[in-house]
């Protein structure tokens, strides 16, 4: 209980930044919806028009956002059953298209419809923050994905999403966490350590469910847990 009131304080700055990323994803999603609903069913090439917006998201949040793009709901495009118009920033700073195997028969099939960042917002139709997780299909960085469902009426067109580097989030929150005089954990909604001021609770560890329900931060559903109650 000592920490609950302070979750907003700890997360104030980073939630503000993530709010801005979400706002940019709303814009990207809006343009995606315009393309997807303009006359003929879209094809892969139609989505190329989104690249300036995607590159804009990457440039606006350099150092925080490592990748961004749109992911189509299966069957949306007429020339590919599944597709990602996804770009990530290489070390040199230039955007690089993600290439994954989208053939369902392939042993390394990248089935994004089973990924948490797709599955959950598909069901809830709400913004979603997933992770941290190892993004082995792309940057191989420890990553938090923000995803926004894009709809035309009742119909799901796909997702607009961005990958945030977990290390950047740590950098933004740890100063505040370090000021606590007892061990505290910033944890994801599904119970994974994002950051902590305790060497006992390094990022990536699973935490047991806290005995008292913790207050979730707005937007990201992250909680601040008093480690001594675990």
């Amino acid at each position: 209980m000592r920490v609950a009131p302070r979750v907003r304080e700890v997360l104030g700055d980073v939630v503000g930044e993530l709010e801005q990323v979400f706002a940019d994803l709303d814009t990207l999603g809006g343009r995606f919806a315009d393309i997807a609903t303009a006359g003929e069913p879209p094809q892969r090439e139609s989505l190329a028009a989104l690249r300036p917006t995607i590159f804009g998201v990457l440039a606006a949040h350099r150092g925080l956002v490592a990748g961004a793009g749109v992911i189509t709901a299966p069957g949306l495009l007429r020339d590919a059953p599944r597709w990602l118009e996804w770009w990530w920033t290489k070390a040199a700073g230039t955007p690089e298209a993600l290439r994954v195997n989208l053939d369902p028969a392939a042993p390394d099939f990248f089935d994004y419809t089973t990924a948490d960042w797709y599955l959950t917002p598909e069901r809830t139709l709400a913004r979603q923050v997933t992770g941290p997780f190892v993004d082995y299909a792309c940057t191989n960085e420890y990553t938090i994905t923000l995803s926004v469902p894009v709809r035309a009426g009742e119909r799901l067109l796909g997702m607009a999403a961005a990958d945030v580097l977990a290390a950047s989030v740590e950098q933004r929150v740890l100063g505040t966490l370090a000021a606590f005089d007892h061990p505290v954990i910033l944890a994801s909604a599904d119970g994974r350590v994002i950051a902590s001021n305790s060497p006992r609770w390094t990022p990536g560890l699973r935490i047991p469910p806290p005995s008292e329900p913790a207050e979730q931060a707005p937007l990201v559903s992250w909680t601040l847990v008093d480690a001594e109650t675990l």
Partner: protein
Amino acid sequence: MSEWDESAHLGLTTVAVQAFLAPLDEASGRADLVARRLAEAIRLGLILDRERLPPETKLAEQLGVSTVTLREALAVLREQGLVTTRRGRGGGTFVQAPADLVPGLVRRLRRFSIHGLRDLGDHRAAVSGTAARLAAERALPHEVDNLARQVERLRAATTGSERRRADTQFTIEVAAAAQSPRLTREELRLRAEVGDLLWLQLDAADHQASVRARGSLVEAIERHEPLPARDLAEEHVREDTTRLVNLRLRIYELDRTGQADQLLGQDTGVS
């Protein structure tokens, strides 16, 4: 290939590029090294048979080498019959995986000492065993579901190249479930280095046993049992190593009597 097969248009997946980009960075991209790495990627199934490579400028950029270097490398591969170039509409440079991988693999295995194979096994056990232990401590339910799905893909894989890909994917996902980018990268590197050798002399019964062992590993991860998970992963590596050492011993024996070619004629389970 189906009309919706994207790999033909896209070339290498990002994972495949990451797998051999790092070694290229260290050696300033000489053409023969690029050729060797691409040849390995073809052998490992990272690049599929009959896959169309991206345009030269694009591929050179992906690999971080100059177009000139890449062109030289492709000429080497063309000579080795690993790629073929077709002109005109629907043309391009296409991968041509060797029909019989075994002679090349036996030659590669011959370059290993028994101690080298044991050392390789020790390295793999350290990485895979730790990844399995940490995955059992750290994996969340949706990550366990992913692993279970990957075991099903491994079970469904029929050709040698599909099995190699599915097993590599499984191994990488265990390391990812361990929440470790470094272990993930290390598994990928080990596979790029020796993944093809692991499949020598693996018959259908071996494959089924391997699928069962992978299934048990996922169960241990799901039950959050770190030490059993580590033991299962290490045991899997140990079996690979024993098989390779046995094969290496036979090559020594056959080389002594000048009969090594016999081995090449046998069904070694690699398709």
